[in-house]
């Protein structure tokens, strides 16, 4: 069966925004607008459909093959719609050492979907991703590009529960060390943490006098 449908161009009526994006780059760099245009569409539609790829190709004066080639290179452009809550679970080393594998398993269990899937309602989708740069506050769960850090089992359960009610709690800002606030980290070595490591387990003794 042949299905015919007309697609309203995404950027129809958004000419100003389109110009703003194109003008971020010099004229010889028109093609640089490719990634921002993909973002623009995806932010609004939770994916970039084939029709949109064609539209972007036309805007930039390139072939649609090139749009697809670039888009498919990156992990966070989606050809099929993601859920209203898109969960990215960091699975790389520091998060893994803070339990991200268990967090992922928990989410799979709870939501009934696995990496790359979206649930039937379109509420949740889940993606295993690589290091999100939150290693000091691991494990991290990014929900719609907002970081939820040091997500313990209870915090995770709480988040899932909230999202089921279509609520997204304000992200708490976990910090540590020098980022903890105006009073900068002071050495703890002086207080004598020691003993629970494999070898060489002593502070420098610096700053003691």
């Amino acid at each position, binding site marked *: 069966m042949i299905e015919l449908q007309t697609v309203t161009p995404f950027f129809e009526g958004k000419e100003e925004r389109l110009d703003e994006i194109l003008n971020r780059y010099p004229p010889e760099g028109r093609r640089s607008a490719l990634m921002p245009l993909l973002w623009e569409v995806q932010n609004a539609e939770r994916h970039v459909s*084939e029709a949109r*790829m064609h539209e972007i190709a036309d805007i930039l004066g*390139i*072939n*649609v*093959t*090139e*749009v*697809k*080639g670039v888009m*498919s*290179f990156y992990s966070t452009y989606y050809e099929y719609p993601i859920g209203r809550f898109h969960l990215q679970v960091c699975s790389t080393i520091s998060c893994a050492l803070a339990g991200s594998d268990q967090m992922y398993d928990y989410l799979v269990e709870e939501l009934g979907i696995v990496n790359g899937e979206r649930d039937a309602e379109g509420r949740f989708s889940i993606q295993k991703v690589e290091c999100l740069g939150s290693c000091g506050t691991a494990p991290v769960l990014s929900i719609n590009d907002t970081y939820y850090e040091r997500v313990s089992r209870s915090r995770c359960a709480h988040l899932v529960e909230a999202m089921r009610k279509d609520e997204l709690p304000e992200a708490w800002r976990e910090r540590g060390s020098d980022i903890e606030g105006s009073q900068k980290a002071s050495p703890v070595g002086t207080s004598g943490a020691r003993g629970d490591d494999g070898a060489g387990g002593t502070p420098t003794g610096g700053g003691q006098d």
Partner: protein
Amino acid sequence: MKVKVNEVELDLKPGTSAIDAVFSAGDDVPYFCSQEYMSPIGACRMCLARIGAPRKDKDGQWVLDEETGEPKIFWFPNLMATCTTQVMEGMVIDTRSEPVKRAQNSMVEYTLINHPLDCPVCDKGGACELQDRSYEYGSGISRFEFDKRHQEKHHALSELITLDRERCIHCKRCVRYFEEVPGDEVLDFIDRANHTYISSEETGLPNNFTGNITDICPVGALLDATSRFRGRNWEYHHTPSVTMDDATGSAVWIDSRTGRIERIKARLNPEVNKTWIDDGTRFGHEYVDDESRLLTPLIRRGGELVPASWDEAAAFVAERLSGMSGKDVGIAIRADSTVEEGIGALALAEHLGTGQIDHAPRHEASVVAPLARRATLTDLATADAIFVAGDVTEEAGIVDLRIKDALKGVAPPELMAHGVPIADLRLKERQPRDERMLTVAAPYRVDLMRYAGVALRHAPGQEASLFRDLEAALKATTTGGDAGEARAGETEPSGHGVASSDIRTAAERLKQGERAVVVLTGAVLASKDAATAALAFATAAGAKLMLIGPMANSHGLEVMGVLPSHANYAYPAMLETAKALVISHLDPAQDPDIAERLKQKDMLVVHDSFLTETAAIADVVLPAKTVYERDGTVVNLEGRFLKVIAAPVEGGTSEDLTGVVKRLGDALGQRLEGRSVRSAHRVLRQRMSIDLADLPEWGEILDVKPVTPRRDTSAPAMAETVKRRGGNVVVTASMVRPEYAYLNRHLLAERGGPTLRVNPADAQAHGLTHGDDVRLRVNGMWRRATVK
């Protein structure tokens, strides 16, 4: 620059890549991603070598080795890809030591882990770079025990090209090819890491030069769909010949097997087509083994065409001829007949004493520019300003590609001991093109306009006025000053409809070029008036000329003087006025009016490979060799004489025109000149002092004075019906291609048939609607087309 490869000392030009150093030392390194005429990218890592070089100290003195007192060699810490490393003074390249061997071994192993190794069923088997290199440089064992990557094995990229994704080794040649050569990225990698695969999101592969990727794919991932599963490489007979599809004289391999052409591939000619051909040339051969091919002569007996022997057919013709005045016989041959065939036709005409001889299609204007002003393809590729009128992409694809070479500003590489450099480091991925140097003028949007700084879209049929205005603008810029400006500025957009500012820019850019070239296609040359104006413009700009004739040997036949002795004896007139006709490979009876007149001729002899509409009403039909089956010579648009070699194709008792001349001569009791290639060559040696017997491999541009036919002043007036019937239709140039489009199954499926673009108003005036099948006359030849 002194370089040492293993033990061989060489002196090389600066800028040479290490891989070319190795090859010019007569040595070998394996490689997959590098490819002649394309940018080196260092992706396959197959060509790794151990490389070192001496260093200079602070005072500019070589650091010496304490033991030997020679400059000390500092080895790079890692093995280097030779394809992306430039030679340095004193460089030492080692391709034989243990670490190099180990690396080669591993690269082969890595390349093979995901390769299906289905060589027994692969068309590339026996001609596969991966097969060869694995054999030469691999260890023969694989330690990979996991599932190979599974991907689509029969993906039709287009009707013409099939992709087997599992076989792909990610050399990126095909992707780079589209970006770097035709400049149209219709193919790309999708996804990344080990999931990377080749694909296109376009409908088919909308480009005229897609087939070249099947030549350069080092494995059997990209295959010519017309020849899939047709034969093994070692079974093919490879004939080195030249394209008959257009006037470029591009070098081809005709691969045949058991009397059939299985495929056509590009062959190297560094001065003409490098290693590229267009898709018409590559895929346009399928008609040859169509079932309807004529294999024996036919004679009309009792109103029916019945098979006959050559002797019978020749005797039949000789007998009829004896009853008529030779002057009344017209001879018309197609413009892709060889030089030798032309000589034969001339000999026959001379014997008959007729001035009614012509080749067709033929433009009104000459396609032979004086040698001193004629641009070679190398001139074009190194030009700094180019003006193109018409659609070169369709008429002579290679001209399009050589123009794109010029836009990159990288001159063709000098050949090395081992041939074309494998890694020309001047070429880069995504090299900028200087589009300002190119102006393209045409009555409709042609593909090359995408690359043109100035695109002049003018009203159809207004070429002459356009060129006159261009010339005026040129003169205005030369004289300078306000007066000139004002005059150019005043010029109201005349009939051609191009803004005068665009005209001025185009004229100025051409003028500024020190190596300017003007390229004229059929759009201009079809009209004497337009051609004269165009030549005047080119002369005023000091530009060289490239004139594109309608067919492979238009230049050669014009030079040989296969021309009527009077304008009123030209091909279209001859169809009306001659009492008898010998027609080779032309099909004028597609026009019903003409067909009627042809039926009234005293005799109609048709030499063709198929029972065309004209053949069907002929008295005698002589089976003809197709363009792939003839030996001889063609002259391309540069005036380059190129050797054509016949492929062993089953064609029954077909003869080319020299054969026809021989048979008829025998029947007429006359040993005619041009009765064979050798006899034609004798004529050429004697009359024009040119020797075609020993043409160099890549042909030769000969300084030949064109033969002007004896003028006949007593020709009859031209019949009213022959006069031009006007009408502003735009004929897309695929229609200027040889016939048989409808018999080339794959090409037809991919491209569709020829189309006729008509302005809606004109269409209405002619009562045409979209999708109508029409016949129309282009340069004296009738074509079928679909109205768009």
